[in-house]
């Protein structure tokens, strides 16, 4: 296969996972997007050295982790907030996943279908319109804390639902 086509296929296969990893450390969407692009270019530059006996996702994540650590500034703590030790721990945790992102996405779609309309609307404000908690609170005329609590509960509920579905799929 043409190396470029092979590279793009591998990159797109783990893009969601790499973005999730970067996004968990860099919370600003634009900064996270910038770093993902930087990682994608570095991966291509180093692609000839990629050991094909290893999973591409794990290799890509290692490079993403390295890039994140390079950006860590102990004084400013921006755009990377967490320390290198914490980044390493998170990277290890990301590495240990078993379910492919596509199966997770399917499980999430199913779980979202069973949410009440009000909950879906709240999630849409947060993720579709990218509003921050205080902006959502203003829009819904609610307190900041109540929105924060509602979102936390919703995410926990969704997380449990996704995991239940993934486990059921694994058993079947």
């Amino acid at each position, binding site marked *: 296969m043409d190396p470029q086509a092979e590279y793009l296929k591998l990159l797109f296969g783990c893009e969601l996972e790499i973005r*999730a990893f970067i996004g968990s450390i860099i919370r600003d969407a634009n900064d996270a997007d910038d770093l993902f692009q930087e990682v994608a270019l570095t991966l291509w530059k180093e692609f000839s050295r990629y050991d094909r006996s290893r999973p591409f996702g794990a290799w890509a994540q290692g490079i993403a982790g390295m890039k994140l650590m390079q950006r860590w500034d102990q004084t400013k703590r921006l755009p990377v907030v967490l320390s290198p030790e914490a980044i390493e721990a998170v990277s290890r945790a990301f590495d240990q996943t078993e379910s492919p992102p596509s199966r997770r996405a399917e499980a999430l*779609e199913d779980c979202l279908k069973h949410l009440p309309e009000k909950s879906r609307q709240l999630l849409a404000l947060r993720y579709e319109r990218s509003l921050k908690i205080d902006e959502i609170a203003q829009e819904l005329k609610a307190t900041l804390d109540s929105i924060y609590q509602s979102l936390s509960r919703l995410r926990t509920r969704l997380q449990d639902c996704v995991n239940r579905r993934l486990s059921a799929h694994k058993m079947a």
Partner: protein
Amino acid sequence: MRQPPTFGPQNGLTMPISDRSRELIHKYLEAHALPSEVVELEVLLSTDPDVAGAFAEAARLDSLLKNHFRKQQKIDQVAALLQTSEASSGKTGARTEADEPAAPAEPPRLTGSTFVRRLWEPTRPRRSLARSLAATARRWPWIAAALLLIATAASVWVLRRPGRDSFQLASGRVIVADRDVQHVPEGVLFAVAGGEIAVLQFSHGTRIELTPATRAVLLQAAGTCTVRLNSGGGKITVPGDRPVVRVETELGIVTGTDCRFSVEFTTALPGATAATERLELPRLVVSVERGSVTVERGGVRTTLSAGDERVFL
């Protein structure tokens, strides 16, 4: 206090994490954590693999939710467009059928798809050619009057429409359907030919300098001048208090007024050279020299100010 079992890094059952750890993770992901709480989370992440696992799970969910809702937003936009188109074609149908004989009884319809339904719509009964000609002849004076009226209105509109000469080529070469042109027609695909920059000077002062081989379509609507960029790019200068310039590409929409910025939109994947080993991904590069522009991409708006350069993949 311990919570019911939650899931960690292996996507199987792992040790539960404390309420506090869960709270810290949520706070962090919502950018709601205090600096002291971030430090507390760091320690937990570095020392407890279950907390790190729960953190990764929560971050994955966060990312999947973003992905889901952005995809949903696009689906909704397309659905809205289809609905609009459906509604307008429905209105047209009602108008043309108003003076026709009554339609036969409606056949059974398939449900579930708005597209299937049209296949079952009744067909109009055919008229003989002689009857059609006779009917047309009777209506001829009215048809002539209507045509005259339309022609007059069209002439007035063409002569009076704002910015009629706004697509004037100031320098360089532009071709439309393999022919050199001096005026770039609205809504038609054109390409910059030769090795020189093509400069389009608009009547309202906006200047667009396009690089060789650029392919684009120009459109004008009230208050907005749109460049639909298929590939290539160039520099765009928009004076203050002038119409907004909007550059549309597959990777994002750049909008600006009272500014000077450049865009470069690459769609192809040129082969990497052994010398550089650089990958040229499809990309949109936006850099701003003066003022500011907004780049809208996947429902997210980014404002770039003078001195900023951003690559969108």
